């Protein structure tokens, strides 16, 4: 048995690709068959990922969610900041300045509104409410 785990640990990144693919597939099936496409498969997949992270956290007591489970450590590479930023940048491919210009002031306004609520106002209020949130944030 041990040698199978060894292969998983050694090829962590490839395992992560497989696991993510399976999550995506199951989620898209759930989206299609159960929610009748009312909820997109990607949203269900993200929630499934969070549930997996919770299971990982509870079962191992670690801080890295599912990546603490033996053999799934490769998820830290695939889900790390490098690939996240790299893939976000690639989504700019289809964008054109003409379309961005069309959204104009309203587009920039909505960007700032989102930033204001998510990073300034609500966290500020909650911090004053109870400082326990500090424990969750990375040091």
């Amino acid at each position, binding site marked *: 048995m041990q040698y199978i785990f060894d292969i998983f640990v050694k090829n962590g990144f490839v395992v992560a690709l497989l696991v993510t693919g399976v999550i*995506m597939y199951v989620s898209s099936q759930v989206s299609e068959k159960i929610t009748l496409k009312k909820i997109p498969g990607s949203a269900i997949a993200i929630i499934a990922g969070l549930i997996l992270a919770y299971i990982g956290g509870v079962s191992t007591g670690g801080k890295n969610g599912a990546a603490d489970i033996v053999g799934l450590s490769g998820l830290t590479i695939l889900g790390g900041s490098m690939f996240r930023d790299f893939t976000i940048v690639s989504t700019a491919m289809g964008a054109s300045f003409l379309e961005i210009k069309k959204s104009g002031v309203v587009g920039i306004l909505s960007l700032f509104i989102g930033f204001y609520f998510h990073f300034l106002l609500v966290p500020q209020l909650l911090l004053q409410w109870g400082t326990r949130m500090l424990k969750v944030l990375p040091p």
Partner: protein
Amino acid sequence: MLVYGVAILAGCYLIGQIIGQLLGRVLNIDANVGGVGFAMLFLILVNQWMHRKKWFTKEMESGIEFWNKMYIPVIVAMSSIQNVKGAISSGMVAVLAGIIPTAICFFMIPYISKLSKSKMKD
């Protein structure tokens, strides 16, 4: 060659990261400020410039397209390595910090889209 497209993406990414880091240094923040945004800007510019010169082949485009499509899987992988247990066990504050601003922004969408429609008529 497919890898040329990926290399262009990688180059834009790295230049963006360097500029973001430099901006962080100038602003005296030990962080990358807008690195991803600069990288996206470069990719759009390089893309348009190379299209005009007709250097950009279909195959190069599919190299970038692949990473474009990997975005959601990467986010799913990212969600699976979050400290969910820590977030839940530290009380409702962390959960509320996510839900409240999202709900506020969600309910603002109709008003903002109204704003943009009235603008387009002008």
